[in-house]
């Protein structure tokens, strides 16, 4: 996935010279996970900017640069550090377009590496999409395959809205086919990653491969699950979810943020509002427990849903 993201950045920087990349260690080092590798050499220090450790500062500056005509792509090293620039994202990036009745636009992409996998503990492993999902005016995207990562990042850079782009750490080194040549994947459209008639599983971000693994195992037992990857979490492709649920009559939502007040809660509520009569069972939620993520591997592993958890949830309502 790292290479796919790198290609997306390179291609968009070649296509549009207003695109700049900035963040901690994105230049000389090429990003701590090398997502921005080689960009400094190709595009120079005016467009690939190593910033100080100053998230509120450089996210604010990106907003200013965007208002003035550039299209900044900002890297936040760990999604947890979004807490350090919450003010600029929540009170400015998301508000300016609306509060000026559309006169101003803030075309920034804030890329953030998200989730567990390094054993770094509670303030370096969070999946904080839900912090921002309650903020109208932002788009929130998270890919689960290299192909999606590239196509979605390209679309995010071209979009005039501020986009938060969550890159799951645990999928960074996953390999997968990426189409040759130019392509984009539209924001706001879900992808049905597996067809099935017995139950709908909506899986978010790094939970997609786990949901697919669960679906394969369930298939051996005669349960055909449909797996939907929304890819864009806000605005959500409600049509895709609702129409699938109307066909399968059952729904499991899989996310890896804490369960309470989460994505699953919103999806369950929306499905109840729009497809209650089609449900043959209560909506089941699979999510992280409501605790900070501890470092010890024995405990840390309990905070991330597995394919087994998904299977269990499916079986509880089929």
């Amino acid at each position, binding site marked *: 996935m790292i290479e796919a993201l790198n290609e997306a950045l390179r291609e968009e920087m070649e296509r549009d010279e207003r695109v700049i990349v900035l963040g901690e260690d994105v230049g000389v080092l090429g990003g701590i996970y090398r997502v921005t590798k080689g960009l400094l050499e190709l595009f120079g220090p005016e467009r690939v900017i190593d910033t*100080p450790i100053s998230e509120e500062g450089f996210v604010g500056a990106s907003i200013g640069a965007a208002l*003035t005509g550039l299209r900044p792509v900002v890297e936040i090293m760990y999604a947890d550090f979004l807490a350090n620039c919450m003010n600029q994202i929540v009170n400015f990036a998301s508000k300016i377009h609306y509060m000026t009745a559309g006169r101003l636009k803030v075309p920034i992409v804030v890329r953030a590496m998200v989730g567990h996998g390094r054993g770094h503990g509670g303030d370096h492993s969070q999946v904080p999409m839900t912090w921002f999902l309650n903020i109208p005016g932002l788009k929130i995207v998270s890919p689960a395959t290299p192909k999606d990562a590239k196509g979605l990042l390209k679309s995010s850079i071209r979009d005039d809205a501020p986009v938060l782009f969550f890159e799951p750490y645990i999928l960074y080194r996953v390999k997968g086919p990426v189409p040759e040549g130019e392509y984009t994947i539209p924001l706001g459209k879900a992808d049905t990653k597996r067809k099935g008639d017995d139950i709908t599983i909506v899986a978010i971000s790094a939970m997609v491969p786990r949901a697919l693994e669960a679906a394969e195992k369930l298939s051996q037992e005669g349960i055909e699950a449909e797996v939907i990857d929304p890819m864009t979490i806000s605005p959500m492709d409600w049509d895709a979810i609702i129409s699938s649920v109307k066909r399968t009559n059952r729904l499991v939502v899989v996310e890896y943020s804490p369960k309470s007040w989460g994505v699953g809660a919103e999806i369950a509520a929306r499905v109840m509002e729009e497809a209650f009569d089609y449900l043959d069972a209560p909506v089941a939620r699979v999510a992280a427990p409501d605790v900070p993520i501890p470092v010890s591997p024995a405990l840390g592993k309990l905070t991330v849903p597995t394919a087994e958890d998904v299977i269990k949830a499916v079986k509880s309502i089929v």
Partner: protein
Amino acid sequence: MSHAKWIRVSDEKFVELGAGKLLSLYETMYRMRRFEEEIANLYRKGLVPSSAHVYIGQEAVGAGVCANLEKGDYVLTTHRGHAHNVAMGVPLNRLAAEILGKVDGLSRGRGGSMRVCDPEYGVLYACPIVGSNIPIAAGVGLALKRLRPGKVVACFFGDGASNIGDFHEGLNLASIWKAPVLYVCENNQYALSVSIKRSTSVENIADRGCAYNVPGYIVDGNDVVAVYEATRMILQEMRRGAGPAILECKTYRWLGHHVGDPGTAYRTKEEVEEWKAKCPIKRLKTKLLELGLASEDEIRQIEEKVEEEVKEAMDFAVKSPYPPEDELMLHIY
């Protein structure tokens, strides 16, 4: 001791600038004052749906800085931003309508008092959260440097903003990027009710520039010619590639933090009166007459013209309707 440099002007500078420039500065300040007085009146009548943080007493700062800005330059202002819009020539009728939340306002009434802006006139945005415009300005400067070399952004903020992290992160970024940002600190000495003496570790905000290698300058913020001249000198260098600077203007707001705050619980009557005696508008008028650069008559004519404009703007704003309810969901992603 001050690290920042005081800039003072003598009477010769007034003569050198000449009647035309001085009268134009007078007109701008008078327009700012009268606009704000009328907004305060409308607020007291219950016609302003939000707070109204008026600028009365600080006019020399906005007028002196903005008179140095040219087409393609930008201003980033704050919650106390009406008068910066006035100084940049934003049409008063749409400005007033915006403050009243009306459909003919600059942002169709959505932004209100604390977000008045018009990029077409150079006012890029008004940031209603203290200090947040400081890093934003660094990015505006970064982009201007690349897209429109020679252009600058003036970022206004108050003394209170120098205590929030955004100030420090923003100044550092602007400095390492050599971004063409004029940071204008309007030191009116109170962050809402808290005196700078109780909240701030330095006497001069401009001194904080030295921590970021940003040159600091201080002026009498009630002397429009001093503000004008200091800005002119700083921008001359900045347009040629010098990096950011901080210009601290020592001034005072006559009213409270906003119109609804009498401002008396934390300031003495004597202190307020002392500053009212230093009124920047009266002060320029006295100088103009004293130096024989303008007559009472010329000044009166300017005032009458402005009175009319302000009255028309307020009438327009009051008569303008509120936006229709079906606009609520427009411009949302």
